[in-house]
C-alpha cells in the first residue's frame, strides 16, 4: 500500500500527465464509471479553475485574443507554471512572459506589456495601503539629512515602461469605455505608476525623469543616489516638482534616514 505522501505525489502527477494517470487509475475503485473518467473530473477542475483565475486577472488580454486563444494559452501556462500558493490571487504572475513566447503572438507585440499592466493592477488591488507621507510628514527631516533620505513606496506601487500605449489599449478595452476605440500602437514609449488609492487603483503617467527616479527609490537608493542616476540621462529633471506631485498622489508611505 502506498504511503499518504506517495499517493499524493502520484495523484498530482496524474492530473497533468496521461501515463501517470493510467498508473494512478489502477489504484482506484472502479464502480460503473471508469477510474480514468473519474480522474478527468479532477483534471478538469484544475485546468478550468485556474483558467478562470487567469481570465479574472487578465480580462483585457482575454478580450484582445478571444476565448479560444486565451484558453489554449492558459492551458499551456497551467501545465508549465505550477501554482505556488493556496491563495489563487497569487497565481498568474508570469503570464506576460508566457504570452510573449506563445505561438502567433509575434504580430501582437503589445500583449506582454498589457498583461504586465493587468498583473500590476491585480496586485495593487490586493495590496495594503499605508497612511501616505505628505509634505507635513517630511518637515521632520533635517535639511542636511535629505541626501541620504530613503523614501518608501506604498506596497501597491508598481512601475511600468512600454514601447506601446498600453494604458490606452487597456482603457479602450474596458466594458464601460465610450471613448475612441482605435489606438495607434505606434504612439511611442510610455511610463506609468500603478498605485492603489483608497478603493481605486490609479494609473499615473510619468515623465522619463520621474520614472527613473522612482525606479531608483524602489530599489532602495537614497534621494541623492536616485537624483544622480536621473541627472546622467535626464539633466532637466525637476526633483522638487516631481516630489511635490508624487507626495500629493500618496505614493510614499514613509522615510528612513
Amino acid at each position, binding site marked *: 500500500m502506498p504511503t499518504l505522501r506517495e499517493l499524493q505525489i502520484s495523484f*498530482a502527477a496524474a492530473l497533468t500527465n496521461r501515463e501517470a494517470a493510467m498508473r494512478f487509475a489502477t489504484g482506484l475503485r472502479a464502480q460503473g464509471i471508469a477510474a480514468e473518467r473519474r480522474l478527468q473530473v479532477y483534471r478538469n477542475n484544475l485546468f478550468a479553475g485556474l483558467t478562470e483565475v487567469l481570465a479574472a486577472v487578465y480580462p483585457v488580454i482575454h478580450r484582445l485574443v478571444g476565448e479560444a486563444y486565451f484558453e489554449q494559452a492558459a492551458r499551456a501556462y497551467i501545465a508549465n507554471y*505550477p501554482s505556488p500558493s*493556496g491563495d489563487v490571487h497569487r497565481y498568474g504572475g508570469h503570464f506576460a512572459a508566457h504570452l510573449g513566447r506563445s505561438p502567433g503572438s509575434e504580430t501582437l507585440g503589445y500583449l506582454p506589456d498589457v498583461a504586465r499592466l493587468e498583473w500590476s493592477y491585480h496586485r495593487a488591488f490586493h495590496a495594503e495601503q499605508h497612511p501616505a507621507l505628505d509634505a507635513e510628514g517630511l518637515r521632520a527631516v533635517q535639511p542636511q539629512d535629505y541626501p541620504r533620505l530613503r523614501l518608501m513606496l506604498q506596497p501597491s506601487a508598481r512601475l511600468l515602461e512600454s514601447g506601446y500605449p498600453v494604458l490606452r489599449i487597456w482603457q479602450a478595452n474596458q466594458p464601460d469605455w465610450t471613448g475612441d476605440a482605435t489606438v495607434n500602437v505606434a504612439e511611442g514609449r510610455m511610463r506609468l505608476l500603478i498605485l492603489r488609492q483608497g478603493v481605486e487603483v490609479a494609473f499615473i503617467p510619468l515623465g522619463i525623469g520621474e520614472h527613473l527616479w522612482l525606479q531608483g527609490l524602489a530599489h532602495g537608493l537614497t534621494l541623492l543616489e536616485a537624483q544622480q542616476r536621473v541627472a546622467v540621462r535626464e539633466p532637466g529633471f525637476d526633483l522638487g516638482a516631481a516630489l511635490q506631485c508624487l507626495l500629493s498622489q500618496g505614493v510614499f508611505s514613509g522615510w528612513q534616514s
Partner: protein
Amino acid sequence: MTVSFRQPVGTGPVPACAGIGLRSTHVHEILETRPALGWVEVHSENYFGRGIPRHYLERIRKDYPVSLHGVGLSVGSTDALSRDHLAALRELIADIDPLFVSEHLSWSSVGGRYLNDLLPLPCTEEALAHVIARVDEIQERLGRQMLIENISSYLQFAESAIPEWEFLAELATLSGCAVLLDVNNIFVSATNHGFDAHRYLQAIPVRAVREMHLAGFTRKTFEGGEILIDTHNRRVVPEVWRLYEAAVARFGAVPTLIEWDSDLPPLAVLLDEARRAQAIMETHHAHAA
C-alpha cells in the same frame, strides 16, 4: 413568506440562523440595502493582504457576523503547513473577529505545487493520524477551534478502509475540531459512491456540528453512468432539502449557509434560499418547544 431572523434564546453568541456566501458581485447591494440576514461567509483567501476587498469586508462586518471559510490551507497535505498562509489567516482573523474559521477535509498541494482544488484523502489509519495532527497544529497556531467540512468526491481509493463518516467523527473527537456539515456534499458523495446519506448523519456526534452548508450541484453523464459535481451554481435540490430536514432533526438548528459561487443569481434568489433554510430551523424550534 416572511420568517423572522431573531436569535433564539439560550444558544449563546452564535446566531442559529441562515446566512449566505458573500461574493464580490453582491457586496454593494448588501451594503446599500442591508437585507435581513443572519450572517455571511467569505472565502478567507479572497481577503488576504488588506487590499481593497478587505476594505469592503470590514464595512460588511459592521452590520453582519462574518465566518471565514478557507479553501487553500491544504489541511491534509503531507507538505509542511504554509507559514505565509497561516500568517495571512491569523491577520485576517484578528481584523475581522469571525464567527467561525473553517477548512476542508481534503488536501490541495504536494511538493510545493498547489492544485487549487479540494482533493480527497484516502480513508486510512495513516491519513487519519496525519489529519488529526495537522488540525491540532492549525488550531494551536491560530489559537482557536477550527470547523472542518466534509467534501464532495468523485473517486474512491482502493486503500480506503474506514468509512468517511467514521473518519470525520474520529477527527472531530480526537482533534477537538468542530464539524461543518455540508449536506449537499453528503448527498453528492452518497450518490457518486452508493452509500446511505442518513447513515453518514447518524455517525457524526451531535455536539460536534456547529455549522451546515447547502448548495446546488451539476449532473455530468459519462459512459457507464452519471457523476454529481459540486458546482455551487444553482438552487438546492428537493432531495437535499429533505436531507437537511433530517440533519436539523438530529443536530438541531445550527447556523446554515447557502453557498453559490458561480453563475451567480440576483441577491434576492440567495436570500430566498436562506429564508427556506431559516423556515426549516424555525419549524424544528416550534416542534422542540
